[in-house]
């Protein structure tokens, strides 16, 4: 069965030492011509082995046709045989027959994983190119620390830093690590072929470096010159020895034992001679299969390790170890070797022992599917099976069956390794799990099944990540459901963190704690303890921290990258907020339904939202209109919204004024009657008496210094004063410090003269008056008017109507201000009143001085009527030792008193002045203001009282 396997003798490039297929004309690495180069005796990789009687096989993938650079597992496997040929006594020893499988060792599991991987038993999915190496990594991780050789030794052998150092390394380690080189260096060479040379320099690093380097195999980069593959060969070969010619002893054995299988013209002569005797003509192969591979006969099973020979596991595992010295084996292999019978000479490969190779076709079951033609759909595809076919359901590799291609290899020590139970790859073990194992109890069963189906397609690292998330959710629910009664949330948090950690360790199944080396086990324990001790935020953040079984090359997103943009403070704050919210929710959970039933929260936009909902749901405009109008303020409620306190006061004031004015229109004061029967004040009486006491035809100057704003207050007074002056036949001259005042003076003069003339029709008396108009300059104008000639002070030398001043009857005998017997000031503004007072005082002093000098004492009386607002200022000149004003009338109240005085004198002006109406309106308006002041303070006091309560 194993005899049908032939040995492929590749051609080593003389330039770059790269291994090329036998029929290669040029080096596939450097392009160097290989014509004339002799084949190198090297054991073919498992993928290149083929039984000559096998049915047409699918085209060989590229990674198998180019083992030197694209398939990292091919080189290391062949390197021990090619680079370190066994000694003669070992070569003559028979290859031990398959024996019952001993207890599987972790090394065998790792090798089995590799074999199953390379043999195509469980081809990896196309998108899991690194996943296959991940399985390999899992297998390697399955080694216990005691079973594995020393890391430094392994690494030092596998990847020598420099080729020139190889001899020295070989000499140093030849006696100590020969077996480790020959036994497990296929794993090490695998790394050597796929990892960078720099990693070899880190051989003596900390304990997990070997695992990290294995991870580095995921990102395999073919060496530019293929030197990494040839380095193990260099180790066993003197540097001075030429590489081109194959070893002589191998060439002799090959020519003496192996016959030329056929006379195919595509085979080289050396290969044709090698197979010509015993092998049958190979079956026609596909065009894509290289001839050298298609026509290769299956190598003899005795020449291959058991796990490569394809024999039953029982036979393979029971095969005794070859006659290797114990010193050449690592301790873990020495134990295995001592328990096995010594290797027989028949275990030698046929090409070494000279026996005829059994040309019977190998069992189909021992070959990979792609090699045995079990998958015809892949025959036309040039891509590898794992890349082109959908990921099949992973099945755990059977321990009783050797992996396909490698099973053809007849190496007892490898058979032992293969016979040991293999660590189950994660992808293969996941489907066998129950879905409930992956999800917390809160997840329904059907949902868990669906999620489990999804997890089947997930890579192991992602699957483990989801398990962590589920565990985290479980811990959170644990925190929410069972708050710490003592309030110590840290302990709860520690439990919540510790449990998912343990669950993860159980759920992943990739690395069991007992499978880890001691140093890694201790590290994991420390890490777990550190998680427990971490504060809440850090422990939560560490729930997604990378785990030892997850490498960066496996597509795992590191925590720092996942939380990019989220600071620790944010994570802490979010964790605290989430915890507080969960605690609050747990506390308020019983009360929330009650609150939601009893409380209705209505946002300001609820009406609009409901209207929009009504529009969408019901196209009826009536429905929409009713929905909209339902939220409109209606009737008095809508009006009351606009009735603020200010508006209410405005309306109240207006209502009071209008009511008082309407009810007081009757001659007797209306229904209200003459509420206010004023008592004539002494100042008003003096004012009245001053006018009454003037001599007949006395010139009187009346100042109209009020504008339209004071019209309601001073117009009645002005009219009353003019009527009084006209009635007493006084010559009236008006002047104004305001432009509009002159117009008002003219208006009142005309009105009063008209009324007077109407009342004095039978008497025939005439009145004389003059409107001097506007006097500009305020103080300066008054100064000139008071101290200088009147003509100089008056502008234009004409009256308000443009009539010349000269010849005016009103100015007869008047050239200066002091010539007036009475000055009546009607002031609407306190400033103008003050100006008049100041200038008249100065003029009076000058007049007195002039009078004293001339002996004429001509006193000019001044009376003032002003608005109520100017009372405070005017009072300054009313009191004192020498008061300026002999009488004053303040506001409407004084006007009423003055009118009352006129009534008493028989000159009723009430109808013209509207005294009663005005008094009633004024009285009620002021009462309203008083009430408002009182109400405002009552409101304030009530607020104080309510606040104190």
């Amino acid at each position, binding site marked *: 069965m194993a005899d049908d396997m032939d040995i492929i003798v590749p051609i080593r490039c003389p330039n770059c030492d790269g291994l090329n297929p036998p029929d290669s004309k040029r080096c596939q690495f450097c392009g160097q011509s290989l014509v004339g180069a002799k084949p190198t005796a090297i054991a073919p990789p498992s993928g290149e082995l083929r039984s000559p009687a096998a049915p047409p096989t699918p085209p060989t993938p590229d990674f198998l046709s180019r083992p030197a650079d694209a398939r990292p597992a091919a080189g290391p496997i062949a390197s021990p045989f090619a680079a370190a040929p066994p000694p003669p006594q070992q070569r003559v020893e028979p290859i031990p027959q398959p024996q019952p499988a001993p207890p599987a060792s972790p090394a065998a599991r790792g090798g089995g994983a590799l074999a199953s991987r390379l043999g195509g038993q469980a081809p990896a999915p196309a998108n899991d190119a690194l996943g296959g190496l991940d399985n390999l990594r899992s297998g390697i991780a399955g080694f216990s620390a005691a079973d594995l050789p020393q890391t430094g030794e392994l690494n030092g052998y596998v990847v020598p830093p420099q080729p020139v150092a190889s001899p020295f390394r070989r000499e140093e380690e030849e006696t100590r690590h020969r077996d480790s080189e020959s036994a497990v260096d296929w794993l090490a060479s695998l790394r050597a072929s796929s990892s960078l040379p720099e990693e070899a320099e880190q051989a003596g690093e900390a304990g997990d470096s070997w695992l990290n380097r294995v991870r580095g195999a995921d990102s395999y980069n073919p060496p530019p010159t293929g030197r990494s593959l040839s380095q193990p060969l260099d180790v066993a070969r003197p540097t001075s020895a030429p590489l081109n010619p194959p070893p002589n002893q191998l060439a002799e054995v090959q020519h003496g034992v192996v016959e030329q299988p056929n006379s195919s013209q595509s085979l080289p002569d050396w290969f044709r001679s090698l197979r010509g005797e015993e092998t049958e003509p190979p079956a026609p192969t596909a065009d894509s299969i290289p001839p050298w591979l298609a026509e290769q006969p299956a190598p003899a099973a005795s020449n291959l390790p058991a796990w490569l020979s394809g024999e039953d596991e029982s036979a393979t595992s029971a095969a005794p170890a070859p006659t290797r010295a114990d010193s050449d084996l690592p301790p873990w292999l020495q134990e295995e070797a001592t328990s096995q019978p010594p290797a027989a000479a028949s275990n030698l490969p046929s090409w070494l022992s000279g026996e005829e190779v059994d040309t019977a076709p190998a069992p189909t079951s021992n070959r990979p599917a792609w090699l045995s033609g079990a998958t015809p759909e892949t025959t036309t595809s040039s891509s590898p099976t794992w890349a082109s076919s959908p990921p099949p359901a992973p099945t755990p590799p059977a321990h009783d069956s050797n992996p396909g291609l490698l099973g053809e290899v007849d190496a007892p020590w490898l058979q032992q390794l293969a016979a040991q139970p293999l660590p189950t790859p994660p992808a293969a073990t996941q489907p066998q799990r129950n879905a409930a194992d992956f999800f917390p109890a809160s997840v329904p069963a059907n949902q868990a099944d669906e999620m489990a189906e999804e997890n089947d397609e997930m890579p192991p690292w992602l699957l483990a990540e989801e398990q962590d998330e589920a565990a985290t959710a479980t811990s959170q629910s644990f925190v929410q459901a069972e708050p710490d009664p003592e309030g110590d949330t840290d302990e709860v948090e520690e439990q919540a963190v510790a449990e998912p950690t343990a669950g993860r360790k159980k759920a992943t199944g990739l690395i069991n704690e007992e499978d880890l080396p001691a140093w890694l086990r201790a590290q994991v324990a420390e890490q777990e303890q550190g998680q427990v001790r971490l504060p809440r935020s850090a422990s939560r953040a560490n729930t997604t921290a990378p785990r030892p079984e997850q490498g960066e090359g496996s597509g795992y997103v590191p925590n720092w990258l996942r939380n990019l943009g989220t600071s620790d403070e944010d994570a802490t704050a979010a964790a605290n907020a989430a915890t507080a919210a969960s605690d609050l929710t747990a506390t308020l959970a019983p009360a929330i339904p009650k609150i939601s039933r009893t409380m209705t929260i209505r946002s300001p936009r609820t009406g609009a939202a409901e209207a929009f909902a009504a529009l969408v749901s019901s196209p009826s405009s009536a429905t929409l209109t009713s929905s909209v109008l339902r939220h409109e303020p209606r009737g008095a409620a809508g009006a009351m919204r606009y009735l603020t306190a200010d508006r209410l006061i405005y309306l109240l004031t207006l209502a009071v004024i209008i009511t008082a004015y309407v009810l007081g229109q009757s001659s007797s004061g209306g229904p209200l009657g003459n509420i*206010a029967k*004023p008592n004539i004040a002494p100042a008003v009486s003096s004012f009245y008496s001053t006018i009454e006491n003037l001599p007949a035809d006395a010139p009187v100057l009346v100042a109209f210094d009020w504008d339209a*704003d004071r019209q309601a207050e001073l117009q009645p007074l002005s009219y009353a004063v003019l009527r009084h002056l006209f009635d007493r036949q006084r010559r009236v001259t008006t002047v104004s410090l305001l432009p509009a005042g*002159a117009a008002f003076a003219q208006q009142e003069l005309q009105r009063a003269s008209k009324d007077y003339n109407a009342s004095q029709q039978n008497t025939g008396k005439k009145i004389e008056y003059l409107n001097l108009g506007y006097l500009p300059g305020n103080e*300066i104008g008054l100064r000139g008017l008071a101290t200088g000639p009147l003509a100089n002070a008056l502008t234009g030398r004409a009256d308000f109507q443009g009539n010349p001043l000269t010849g005016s009857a009103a100015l007869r005998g008047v050239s200066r201000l002091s010539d007036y017997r009475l000055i009546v000031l009607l002031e609407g503004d306190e400033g103008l009143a003050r100006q008049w007072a100041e200038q008249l005082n100065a003029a009076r002093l000058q007049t007195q*001085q002039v009078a004293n000098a001339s002996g004429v004492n001509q006193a000019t009386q001044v009376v003032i009527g002003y608005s109520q607002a100017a009372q405070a200022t005017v*009072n300054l000149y009313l009191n004192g030792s020498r008061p300026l004003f002999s009488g004053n009338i303040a506001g409407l109240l004084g006007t*009423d008193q003055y009118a009352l005085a006129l009534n008493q004198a028989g000159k009723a002006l009430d109808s013209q002045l509207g005294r009663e109406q005005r008094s009633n309106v004024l009285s009620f308006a002021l009462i309203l*203001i008083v009430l408002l002041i009182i109400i405002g*303070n009552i409101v304030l006091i009530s607020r104080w009282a309510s606040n104190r309560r």
Partner: protein
Amino acid sequence: MLRRNAGRKDSPKPDTPAATPPVAGPETSPAKVVRVARVRGRGATPPGTTAAPPGARLPAPFATVVVVISGIVALVSYFVRGSFNVGSVTVNVGGLGDLLIGLVSLLLAFALFVGLANLLRVHLRRVGKRESGWPYSLVLLGSALATIIAGVVGSVSSNKSGLSGDAASWIFQNIYQPLGSTFYSLLAFFIATAAFRALRAHTVEVGIMAVVALIVVAGLAPISQLPELKSVADLGNWVLNYPAQAGVRGIAIGASLGVIATSLRVLLGIDRQYLG
């Protein structure tokens, strides 16, 4: 070297900003350059810049002398009336004072025309540039022109001057007076709301003010003339005649002292803010 440079105040220092003459750019007008140069060089016109046009302003010393002399004459004329001889020249101090006062009154009368011209210019510009509120300016201009035209035309047609004309009088009586009276009447409503809001006794001071206001308003009401409420009227008058008058008198005295001090500063040439 340092001493010689220190004595030359006009020589620009290399490290001072004045050493770099301002460059007239597109945003720098020549007048602005001159202004900046004056500020930096304290009146010295830097080379390459144009000097200010002569006669744009009255020289400060001359203006100050005019102001001081006019003020002193007006002040003396207040106390000294009559004339006296200074050599062969008779000086009438009172007449001179009256002349100055008459000139001031004339100038102030012309100020109305100046104000009217400025008002028209400002609002014409707003209307021309369509600035915010330009329609109101347009209404103002139209009203002013209408009043002026009505006064001029009315005075010419009716042989009356100013507002005594028919058209101007009609505008005054039917537009100006109602608008003015109505606008002022709004104060009644504002006072009512202010009495409700502002006269709340939040503090002691406001409480005192509220009480005094309550007394004064009640005393000024005509209804307070009733015999029953006479005490209220008397209390209001007392507040106005004594406490209020005391405060007003103090304010008046203080203002008068301020006016005297300011007048002395102007007469002594210390305060020259009137020069601009």
